[in-house]
């Protein structure tokens, strides 16, 4: 093999070097440079741009938060949500406990019990947001796409425990019925070609 690539030690491929003008060699040349830059009027070009932007109307770059909010990416990982099943309105969470297990900040806990129908019921679910590092592992590991991140990043509150209980995270029924529950396209969501990974199991029916 060619060793050419190893010999080129001074640069990483793809970088373009800017050829700056040569530095003045003595005091006379330095003096000439100062005079040249001053007389050229570059100072006023800059001042003009600032003045122009200042007096143009409706040209503010400041976001007027909280009256104004920046849009965030769909995969942004803010406070968690527990979603409901589209057909039955039931909670998606089956209480498998994988999020509890994978959580590296150890901030998820759940209480489960056997309900009257012989199913596993999640009586309580909590995330300690004082500890959560929003890594997204819980959303990634969830087999039911039940726990996801939302875009709600505003979580200032007078109580530490706010936002962290099941009733805070679960999609309220009115929101759900208004079809406002959003799927999360970030961590844990199925890829577009997920179907192609599935092998067909023979059926006897």
């Amino acid at each position, binding site marked *: 093999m060619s060793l050419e690539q190893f010999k080129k030690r001074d640069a990483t491929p793809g970088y373009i070097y800017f050829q700056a003008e040569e530095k003045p060699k003595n005091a006379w040349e330095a003096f000439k440079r100062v005079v040249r830059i001053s007389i050229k009027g570059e100072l006023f070009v800059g001042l003009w741009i600032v003045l122009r932007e200042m007096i143009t109307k409706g040209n503010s770059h400041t976001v007027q938060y909280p009256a104004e909010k920046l849009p965030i990416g769909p995969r942004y990982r803010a406070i968690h949500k527990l979603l409901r099943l589209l057909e039955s309105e039931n909670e998606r969470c*089956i*209480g*498998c*406990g*994988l999020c*509890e*297990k994978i959580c590296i900040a150890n901030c998820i*806990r*759940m*209480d*489960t*019990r*056997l309900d009257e129908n*012989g*199913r*596993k*019921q999640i009586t*309580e*679910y*909590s995330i300690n947001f004082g500890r959560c590092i929003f890594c997204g592992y819980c959303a990634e590991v969830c*087999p*039911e796409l039940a726990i996801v991140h939302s875009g709600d990043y505003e979580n200032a509150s007078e109580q530490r425990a706010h936002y962290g209980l099941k009733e805070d995270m679960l999609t309220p029924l009115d929101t759900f019925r208004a079809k406002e529950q959003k799927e999360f396209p970030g961590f844990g969501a199925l890829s577009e070609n997920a179907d192609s990974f599935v*092998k067909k*199991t*023979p*059926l*006897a*029916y």
Partner: protein
Amino acid sequence: MSEVIVNINGKECKAKEGEYILNIARANDIFIPALCYLTNCSPTLACRLCLVEIDGKRAYSCNAKAKDGMNVITDNEEIQKERRAIMEIYDLNHPLECGVCDQSGECELQNYTLEMGVDSQSYCIKDVHRPARHWGRIHYDPSLCIVCERCVTVCKDMIGEAALKTVPRGGDLVDKELKDTTPKDAYAMWNKLQKSIIGIASGEESLDCTQCGECTAVCPVGALVGTNFQYKSNAWELKKIPASNPHSSDCSLLYYDVKHTSIKDSQEKIYRVNSDFNYAPLHAAARYGYDFENVVEKKDEIAFAKVIDALQTKVDTIKFNSFITNEEALILQKLKEKYGYKLVNEDAYAFGEFLNSFSQTSGTSLYNGDLKKVRDSNFVISFGTHLKNDSPNSGYALNNALAMNKGAGLYFHPLGDKVVQNYSKNITQISHKVGAEEAIAYLILDLFGKDLPLHVSEYLQTFHSTVKKTVKQEVKETIKEIVKKVVVDEESKEEKEIEEEVSKVVSKMVDKEIEVDQNALFQIAGLPEDFQEILEKYLDKKDTFSLIGGEDLYTHPRSQNIAKLLGLIQKHTDFSVLLIPSKTNTLGVSLICDLDAQGGKYTLGYNEKADITLSALGNGDLDMPALNQQEGTFTSMNKRVVPTNVALSFKGYCLNDIANALGLEAEFTIDYTKELPTDKGFEQKEFDSLENEFDNSGNENRGYSLHVKDTTSDEVVENIETVDVLDGDIIYLSNPVHQFSPFTNKAHQLNEAGALYVSTEFLEAKGLNAGDMVKIYNQNASLVVAIKLDQMLEGKIAYLPTFDTKLDVKQFFADGFRFASVSIEGAK
């Protein structure tokens, strides 16, 4: 048995001849997959995963016995194909509910599916409806069941109740066309799988056994789980704390599975008890009686000061029982040495005295048997104990010996027990009269004794007499007969009748008078008439003998002489003798403490009612930690000092705090572990150096064994002295099958009200029904109590329990003996 060398995957493994290849492989850290095999139980051959190649031929390692020079290959392409196909078939129609299943990853089906790399399914079959069953404390979900039959095997070979069996599933038959394309063993396994599912052996709707729950422990999937644990927690969230059974003297290894109570309550809680089922079975009380902890909020300084003050001024006696650790017993002994308190402990005192007398004739400081020896023997006698209730684990060992070693056994007890009868057809229950125990001890000496001391053999000879007896005997006689025969004459072709003499052997029954040796002890012991024949049949090809003795003997009016006789049995017969300590640490306390027979004027009780009481039940003057809140050691019936750890924290004072306040110095209770008396057989070992586990070959690496010392023996025993015959109704002091003490009764899964436990026979004879109230009285006491039916009990003797603190039953048994005569009448 001779030692052989087996070559497994190129590794030379030493083993005993006849040992199963699978066990040899496991002991040598060689992995062979197996779903259905259980150590100490017979091979089921249901899963066929343990398929190996022995000298070029296919065999199943779980039932292939080792021979010298065997060459075993545990894995090749063909075997891999079989195993993969087997796992594919096990996965067929298995519900994809791993996310909520209670096995939560501790699932062998899941493990082997991944191990065999099953990532696609090539078979299919129609499923059948399999609804879940509720069997009391046990929950069975047949849809998760893979019919490995471990539960059936353990119930039969280990527990001895055979309450489960395989029943028809009613599934579709496997398509015959698949026979050519499916690997052979996988196809055979599939055929069997389609035909069976687990059901109740008796055909009843609910499980009519003692509900020990061992079936839930052995289940490799989530099909059999404890009802109480269902959907409570994932297994991986639970912290396993190794401990020893605190309720009975088997002190089996168990694990408390601990986690925070709930999101709102971060206090730790025990969710279930787990075990190492291959090596240590657990009984119901150990498995379900885990939440007996004493919850206190903080140190009660006033009560503590009161107790210290009482100890310094008034107390002259400390009364306690044997549900304590060795270390606590040593603290009490040290307090005795320092302040002269009298130590009163009824059960340990009786046991200690019994052991002393035993040593006098046996010449050893302790008995020589243990549960492993019982399991390894093929002739077992149980004597003087209500075995199933007193020490279920001894019952399991007895059953295991009968099942695995083609053994036989005798069970001497006044109370009949259907469970024991079910162990095997080679066990005979002898319901002898109350008080005949001494005669039975002599009988065992008479039947099995070798080189007995002269005075004993002379005394035994007095029971023998020769009687003439007429027996029918088969006699073979040769008789000559004249038979007429038709012969065709060859020449004339004519039929001719000729007469021929033929001799013939005929057997004939004749009466014959023979001289028979009659043993009067048979009658005293209440043996059945054909006992001699039964015994001869039982003793055929038997070479290892065990005897289990129990609590009836320690409290017997003739206990000292019985102890001496048992000592002689250990010395002069092939029997190894196992004495069941009556409570968890009775053996330890009897060795560590210098106990007094009588108490003084002012008594401090530790878990016993007294003038001032320390109690782990939460009903005394000062709260103490329960045994699941303490660390320390127990001395088990196997003469082993085993450690137990803290499962739940305790916020109050413990005995060590009291001892420190009184001038002893130790930071922790376990500082006393290394100070346990070496002259009694204990070792000077730190608590933290004690292990608590079984290794892969089943070796018990738990704590250490007590050193048994030789003592001087004199072999002097007394003759049989007849005990007063109990008349009227007889009651027995015993707990029902899953209760041992108020601690087991505190556990929420076991809690019940005490009653008089009776048999169906008793109810019929008295014209009473279960649930009726009865009045029990004798000259000492009277008590009105409900009656409960014990389905497993036979005979007319009823029993009263000690686990319910609301019932004062000890008053009936004034002299300590477990039997008392009373009158029982229906009360309104």
